[in-house]
């Protein structure tokens, strides 16, 4: 049985924002990865940024610095 852990999820209104987030964070070593949006969350884009909860502040700052639109921030067991 797959073990689930608490994750922080950033949703985006558009796929271009999600993909730009991946590029921005990848270039700067900001933790997390792009995954399909969990079914329990509704957003414009079907991809989301997923990371450990302790990295939430770091990622929120990255999104602001990059000028990216974030739809919502959630904490889920995934």
């Amino acid at each position: 049985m797959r073990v689930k852990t608490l994750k922080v999820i950033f949703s985006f209104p558009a796929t271009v924002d999600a993909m730009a987030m991946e590029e921005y964070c990848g270039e700067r070593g900001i933790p997390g990865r792009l995954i399909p949006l969990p079914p329990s969350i509704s957003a414009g884009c079907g991809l989301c940024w997923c990371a450990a909860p302790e990295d939430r502040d770091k990622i929120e700052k990255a999104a602001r610095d990059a000028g990216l639109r974030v739809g919502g921030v959630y904490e889920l067991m995934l």
Partner: protein
Amino acid sequence: MIIEVNAMGDACPIPVVKTKNAIKSLNGGGGVVKTSVDNEIAVQNLTKMAQQKGYEVKSEKLGEASFLVTMTIGEGAESVDDVPETCLVAPESAPRRNVVVVISSDKMGEGSEELGKTLLKSFVYALTQQDELPATVMFYNGGAAMTCEGSPCLEDLKTLEAEGVEILTCGTCLNFYGLSEKLRVGEVTNMYSIVEKLSGASLIVKP
């Protein structure tokens, strides 16, 4: 003595269990056991059980989901305890699945190459989240890069491999793309094995 067993709606192996119990209640005195079931798999399981014990057996289809299996047990018949209470014929509701996923490109779908690469990464991640994992994930042509050094899918593929999923990459393709020394997950395969795996698959998934 005639015993009627109602096993309508019972899942395997309950019809066999109920019938065995009815036969035991004859206490070696012989008799007829009539078992009602609602599917052909149960008919087959009961028939096989009777044949194993040497009982006379016949089955009748009474309706769309109604069958009657009649066993005649002779006096002094041997115990049925040695007949296993497991499905002799696998029920259709639990087929053995041999799902093979085929990845023939480093992107998913047509249109934007950038989006396609992102989609494929998401697909492979989503595979790791399935309750039922595929038996095999195979890579060929442009997909061969996904199992090699630098692939964004390596971590997820290694997770799948650790869970018992077979990861196969076409050797011809690795050679063509100069990746033979850069395989980082799974094994090298050839066209014969690819054809064999695809031909034997219960379901082929191609993103």
